[in-house]
């Protein structure tokens, strides 16, 4: 969502919060955080993965899995065409990237929503990709990280979209029963069906500063309510104050924070066998293999 000004040979970007013009290279160096006001620009999933994972460690899964216009939805342009266009523009087939990677050496299963892909909206394909990566975490006994950036369920797939919430909550239930940790990272914006399924179910919920997080979008709330909204309403700091988050973490600290947490959360989970058949079975030799891989 970084909009460049046409002036100065595309080198200046206007901050969406303080309207300051910032040098594009400075902005990149500062991980797209405005040096003037600290506004966190939205990142694409690719940028997010570069930010969080060790260089070259991301191994994408199910990259070819994508949506289809299952309801023959009367959108304009037609949904199928929109999917093709946004895929061409973003270089991805869906609004989430999933796979494995390392955060400061710790191997994780990871899913990252891509907001530029139809607002990170969740239809069948997003639900399926995330479920598969959760099941992969179960099978390999990996900690799970999901970075949310989504307006919610994808209207164009109707009831199928809604049911992805059930599917994901069930998969996360298995992960939980198997004793594996899940760190959820909420970024701007995380609302609707994604907030009400995956994003707020972390063992640890982290959010970037000032991210919009909530069940109903701000427009819906404005329609329902005629009272004055609190100043930081539905922002990370508001959720923090009301007990929904464990920490609000500025972007430059995010990777380090994640690594610290994962080391502690995962120390026992990685070696503990599942106890009741609801989770994954431990693979023989997994512990030794993991020690070799992690160099621990």
């Amino acid at each position: 969502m970084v909009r460049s000004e046409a002036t100065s040979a595309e080198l200046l970007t206007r901050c969406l919060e303080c309207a300051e013009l910032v040098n594009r290279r400075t902005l990149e160096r500062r991980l797209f955080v405005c040096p003037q006001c600290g506004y966190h620009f939205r990142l694409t999933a690719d940028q997010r993965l570069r930010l969080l994972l060790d260089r070259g460690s991301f191994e994408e899964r199910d990259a070819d899995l994508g949506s289809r216009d299952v309801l023959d939805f009367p959108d304009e342009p037609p949904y199928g065409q929109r999917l093709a266009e946004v895929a061409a523009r973003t270089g991805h087939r869906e609004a989430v990237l999933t796979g494995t990677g390392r955060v400061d050496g710790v191997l994780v299963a990871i899913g990252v929503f891509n907001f530029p892909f139809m607002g990170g909206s969740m239809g069948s394909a997003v639900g399926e990709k995330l479920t598969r990566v959760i099941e992969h975490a179960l099978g390999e006994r990996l900690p799970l990280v999901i970075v949310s950036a989504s307006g919610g369920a994808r209207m164009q797939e109707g009831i199928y979209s809604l049911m992805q919430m059930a599917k994901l909550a069930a998969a996360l239930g298995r992960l939980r029963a198997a004793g594996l940790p899940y760190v959820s990272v909420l970024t701007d914006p995380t609302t609707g069906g994604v907030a009400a399924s995956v994003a707020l179910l972390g063992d640890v919920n982290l959010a970037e500063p000032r991210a919009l997080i909530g069940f109903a979008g701000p427009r819906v709330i404005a329609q329902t309510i005629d009272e004055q909204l609190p100043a930081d309403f539905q922002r990370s700091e508001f959720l923090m104050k009301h007990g929904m988050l464990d920490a609000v973490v500025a972007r430059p600290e995010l990777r380090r924070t994640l690594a610290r947490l994962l080391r502690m959360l995962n120390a026992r989970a990685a070696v503990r066998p599942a106890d009741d058949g609801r989770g994954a079975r431990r693979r023989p030799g997994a512990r030794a293999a993991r020690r070799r891989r992690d160099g621990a």
Partner: protein
Amino acid sequence: MAVTYLDFELPLAALDTRIETLRRARERGAAESRELRRLESERRKLERTLYETLSAWQRVELARHVDRPQTLDYVARLCADFFELHGDRAFGDDAAIVGGIGTYRREPVMVVGHQRGHSTQERLLRNFGMASPEGYRKALRLFHTAERLGIPILTFIDTQGAYTGVGAEQRGQAEAIAHTLRGMALLRVPIVSVVIGEGGSGGALALGLGDRLLMQEYSCYSVISPEGCSSILYRDRAPENVARAAEALRLTARDLYRFGVIDEVVNEPVGGAHRNPRRAGEALERSIAHHLAELKEQSLASLLARRYEKYRGIGRYLE
């Protein structure tokens, strides 16, 4: 009982008025019954064509009908005894979701459902069935009680959606729904869920992760309301656009059955459950009994595995 007619039912209303007048006249011995029989037969024909060719939007209107039976109406028909349980033990008691323990066919059952309210006063008290976080947390509390005591669970879905107010956001509406969903997925007792009216988005789904998911014939279930969808698609809520949106969303019981999302469409009396609540209740009762009996036959491991696979399998994509 006075019947509330929807716009598209007005031709029926006109006939009903004439039939009623004739009946009264006959009671006074002042009219012949041939005209009455003719009108009654005309009414049956009209009724059949009217309800066989309902548009998606008309079905939504029926699903939201003010006279339609609600959770507590069905509880009264299904349960010989019922004790309502209240509160989430943390913040408060949300009247938009009701729940309690009852006896059904001489066995205990935990019933939880949305309750929109019938009278204006009751509707206000129950926030029109739009639940707040404490409603979902109460639901989950009752689910866990049922699980601990080995009591099967029955849920009734009937809401336009979860409440979208400031307080609901403050107290974590999204977290409450997510938590309830995950909790339901893991419950070690059988769950039968029925959409008895409007199934509005996440607020409906939060009570709907059953081993069996049923819908009454004139109920609907959708990711977004037709009005909300129309606002996005057509940038207004003009009646013709709302009707088009309702069509586009494929939200009728028949659609969802065809998609394999629900397990059964439960028949209703012609014109909707409110036309004959007793018969609607009997049909519902038969379906619930059938599904509960089947679920009780299953081992716990199989129950949980099948529940997981049921939702795991929903989705259409390319790869």
